[in-house]
C-alpha cells in the first residue's frame, strides 16, 4: 500500500515534469530545420582523423625501418684488419689448409671469421659473421701490397736499430783501456 503510494507520487512528479517539458519542446519542423542548417563538421573531422592516423602509421614504419635496416656504413668495420694482430693464436695460423695459396701470415677473411665463430674461449660475445664485401677484399690486398719507394727507408745499420745491445757483446774492450791507463 505504502509502496503503491510512493510510486504514485513519483509518477505524479514525473507526469508534471513531462507536461512542462512538452510545453517547452520546440516544434518538430523547427528542430529539423535547425538540424539541416547545421554545419557538418563531422566529415572533415573524420577525414582529419584518417589523415592523422595515416601519418602516424607512416612515421612508425619509418622508425622501424631505421632501427632494423641501418645502413652497414654506420657499423664499425669488422674483419678488415688481418694478419698477426688479429688476435688469432699462431698455432691456428699454422694449421691453415694446404690448398690455401696465401702465405701462413696472411689468413683469409673467411678463415678468420670461421675461427672467431668457432672459438669458445673468447670472453666477449662474438659478432655475427657478416658476408664479405669488396671493401674487405681491397683491404686484404692492401695488406700484401708494398710501396715501390720502400727501399728509400732502408738505411745501412738498420739492424743495429732493431736489436737490443748486450753489455758483454760490446766492441770496445774496457779491460785493455783500464790496463793501459794503469801503466
Amino acid at each position, binding site marked *: 500500500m505504502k509502496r503503491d503510494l510512493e510510486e504514485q507520487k513519483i509518477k505524479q512528479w514525473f507526469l508534471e515534469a513531462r507536461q*512542462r517539458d512538452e510545453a517547452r519542446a*520546440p516544434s518538430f519542423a523547427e528542430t529539423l530545420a*535547425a*538540424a539541416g542548417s*547545421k554545419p557538418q563538421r563531422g566529415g572533415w573531422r573524420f577525414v582529419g582523423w584518417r589523415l592523422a592516423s595515416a601519418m602516424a602509421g607512416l612515421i612508425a614504419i619509418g622508425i622501424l625501418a631505421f632501427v632494423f635496416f641501418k645502413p652497414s656504413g654506420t657499423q664499425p668495420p669488422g674483419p678488415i684488419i688481418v694478419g698477426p694482430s688479429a688476435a688469432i693464436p699462431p698455432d691456428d695460423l699454422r694449421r691453415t689448409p694446404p690448398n690455401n695459396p696465401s702465405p701462413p701470415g696472411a689468413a683469409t677473411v673467411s678463415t678468420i671469421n670461421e675461427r672467431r665463430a668457432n672459438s669458445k674461449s673468447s670472453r666477449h660475445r662474438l659478432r655475427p659473421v657478416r658476408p664479405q664485401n669488396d671493401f674487405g677484399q681491397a683491404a686484404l690486398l692492401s695488406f700484401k701490397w708494398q710501396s715501390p719507394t720502400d727501399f728509400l727507408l732502408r738505411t745501412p745499420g738498420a739492424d743495429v736499430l732493431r736489436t737490443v745491445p748486450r753489455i758483454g757483446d760490446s766492441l770496445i774492450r774496457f779491460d785493455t783501456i783500464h790496463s793501459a791507463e794503469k801503466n
Partner: protein
Amino acid sequence: MDGAQLRQALEEHHREAYGWTLACCARHPADAETILQTAYLKILEGKARYSGTSAFRTWLFAVVRNTASDYRRREWLNRLRLTRHTESAPPVAARRFEDDVYRSQVQTLFLRALDRLPRRQQEALQLVFYHDLSLAEAAEVMCITIGSARTHYERGKKKLRQLMAESGVFDEKGLGRAENQAMVP
C-alpha cells in the same frame, strides 16, 4: 523505412524524444535541442538505421542516448581544452527566468533530487515513469540486461524517496503542496 516514413515516425515521437533528451543532458534545454538535432541528422542521413527488431520509440531513445553520450564526451574534451563556447549554455538570467515561470517549487525539489541520483538510476526511473516503458524496454534503451535495469530502478526509487523525505516533501501522511510550502526554498 524510407525517408518520408522516418520523418513521420520522428514527428510522432518528437515531444517524447525531447523529454528523454532533456533527461540525458541534465535538463539543459539548449544542450537538449543540440543533441536532438544531431540525433535526427544521424537518422535522416542513414548513419543510424532502424532495423525493425525493436519498437521504433525504443530504438529512437537508444540513438538519442548514444548521441547524448557523444555530446557529453565532446563537451568534456572541450572543457579540458578550455575552448567551450559560451553559446552552448544559455545565460544564467534566462535560465532563472525559465525556472521561475515553469517550475513549481515542489518540482524544483524533485528535479534536484533526481539530479543527485546516479545516471543509470535516473535513466531507469525516467524511462519507466516518464515514458511508460516496461523494464525490458528500458533495459534495451540503456543497453543493459533486464536484471541490471531492475536493480537501477529499485535503487533509484529508494534513493529518490529518501532524498524527497529529507527535503520534507515525501511524508507518509500524504503530500500536499500547501503543507510543504515552508520547506520549499
